[in-house]
């Protein structure tokens, strides 16, 4: 037993606990003259956190918003795939949802720079008489990128939970006089909650650390915490402050995700099982 767990435990020690401790120690240090870590013990870095307030605000706005949008786009598709599609085409259509995942996210996101850039959609809009629309380097572009990047992650769990749903329940509801919409609200939606919870969780976690999409489609203007951290480590070389931001992000993640899990688990459909 010990032998089975030893590698995993070692991994956690060296690759998780040690780095987190180093980050924590650094976050109380001072920046060295030319950058990096300069030792010391101070709360200055944490006191300075408000200087990144906007990045935190952006992340905490766009991560839930992006998650919600992904869900709104993904849910009908998952519903369609799970309940409306003929068995024969189901697998093909499902695979088509994952295939984009196999092209580098970088390249896919880069493709959007053209689509949203001056010669893309705005030009098309100009043809039909709508002028002056700017998409690239706006929050809208970032949100489009987010939905595009993480759609499959949302479609899949929701699809699985809808697929497991007992179809006779829907028939029973219709039989009991519920119209389609009522059936959806009272039966389908609650029973697909575990899938929704899992999908939202996955997307939310990834969005909280997002860097690429805002960097590419936000033009350096829509800054997430991820971008702020990359900036601190790879431009201003302020390791202590970057560590403080990272530590804060970890704490925020722990709190939000724990609350979220608690809420999701309270749900009688038992989202906990699909979460962990």
């Amino acid at each position, binding site marked *: 037993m010990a032998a089975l767990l030893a590698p995993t435990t070692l991994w956690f020690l060296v690759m998780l606990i040690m780095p987190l401790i180093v980050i924590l120690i650094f976050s109380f240090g001072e*920046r060295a*003259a*030319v*950058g*990096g870590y300069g030792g010391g013990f101070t709360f200055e870095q944490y006191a300075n956190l408000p*200087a*990144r307030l*906007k*990045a935190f605000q952006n992340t905490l706005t766009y991560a839930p918003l992006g998650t919600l949008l992904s869900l709104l786009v993904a849910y009908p598709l998952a519903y369609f795939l799970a309940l409306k599609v003929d068995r024969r085409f189901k697998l093909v259509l499902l695979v088509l949802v994952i295939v984009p995942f196999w092209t580098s996210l970088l390249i896919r996101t880069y493709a959007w*720079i053209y689509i949203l*850039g*001056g*010669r893309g959609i705005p030009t098309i809009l100009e043809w039909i008489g709508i002028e002056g629309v*700017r998409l*690239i*380097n706006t929050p809208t572009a970032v949100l489009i990128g987010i939905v595009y990047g993480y759609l499959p992650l949302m479609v899949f769990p929701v699809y699985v939970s809808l697929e497991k749903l007992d179809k006779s329940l829907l028939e029973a509801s219709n039989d009991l006089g519920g119209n389609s919409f009522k059936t959806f609200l009272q039966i389908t939606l609650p029973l697909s909650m575990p899938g929704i919870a899992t999908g939202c969780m996955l997307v939310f976690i990834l969005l909280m650390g997002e860097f690429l999409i805002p960097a590419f489609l936000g*033009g*350096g*203007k829509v*800054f997430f915490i991820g*971008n*702020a951290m990359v*900036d*601190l*480590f*790879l*431009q*201003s*070389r*302020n390791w202590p*402050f970057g560590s403080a931001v990272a530590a804060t992000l970890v704490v925020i993640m722990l709190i939000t995700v724990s609350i979220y899990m608690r809420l999701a688990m309270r749900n009688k459909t038992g989202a906990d099982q699909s979460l962990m």
Partner: protein
Amino acid sequence: MSKNSDKQITSKQFMRQLWRYKRGSISRREFLGVTGLGMATAVMGAAIPSLLPQKSWASTDLGDRLVFSTWPNYWNQANLDEFTANTGVNIQVNAFGSNEEMLAKLQAGGTGWDVFVPTNYTISNYVELGLIQELDLSRIPNYDASANNPKFAGPATVNGKVYCVPKNWGTTGFIINSNKITSGPKSWKDFFEVTKGEGSGHTIVHDYQLTTIGAALCALGYSFNSIDPNELAEAEAVLIESKPHLFAITSDYQPGMRSGDAWMSICWNGDATQLHNDLPEMQYVIASDGGEIWTDFYAIPAEAPHLDAAYAFLNYMQDPAVQARDAEAHGYAPTDARAIALQPASLATDPILHPAEELMNGLEFGAAQTLTDPNRAELIARFKSA
């Protein structure tokens, strides 16, 4: 390896290495490096040019890899291809947005770079941190110090030792799309006015401290290199105020300008030439209230894994003809008089590349202190995340 090769090797050690080489447990290159023979070969080759084939940089086995980190749009692919064709060394180009980013990468270690392109104001810092190595100029016979204007080549020498060879020099001003920006801004003050006015939503500033903060400082009438906290605070206010009007914060401004999304950007003169050549409405402006003049250099990181290839590459790139071709592609002026002499007249007299002296009077070389000043670093980071 370099540390070992400048130490005398004992005969016993030499024999041991020789046996290892014969057994095949080390490569020829390693053998030559460890025993110092590689060095000897190179020195002899440099001393007796006639003994070597025409192209001295092809004299030894250089391996097949070279990692070259530089700025976007800053090389002539044909030159790199020729180097590869002659030496078998393939070049991987990494493009970086700022000196700060390069410094951060090198500080973290393990970059794998063989040659990179630092700007004048960073070199003393690199030397201090031990991140670049002193150059053995005997391995770069194509470099002619006397042909370089000391004004540009000066920063390569730190404490009497040469750490870099110059690449190009240039100015940092701004570029406008004259079809869109009609008010004709002439200064950084104008630049920020236009940003908030007719250029709103279509202006790009760089994503690193030196030029963006420098521009704001100049607009306020301060020194481009100021690290005075009060002046910086004012500059920050200028930047923050203009942020809602920006199209992007990036040093890779060509795609935005070309696509028509951006109409105005902080710009280096060579990029301006590239843009102007393709799109005549692109106009470069050297701001009347100041700005930057700079030199870029070639340097070899202390931990360069392909040292021989790096020297060969440096030597190749110092060839005047190669320099001239390079400049032709990217539009930046060489510092080397021999190369300028080989340039077509149109380039040699180009007002963007070689502006009149009086235009350059207000320009300043970036100061080393700006790179290390924590306030400037934090200011730009704060501005970006604001």
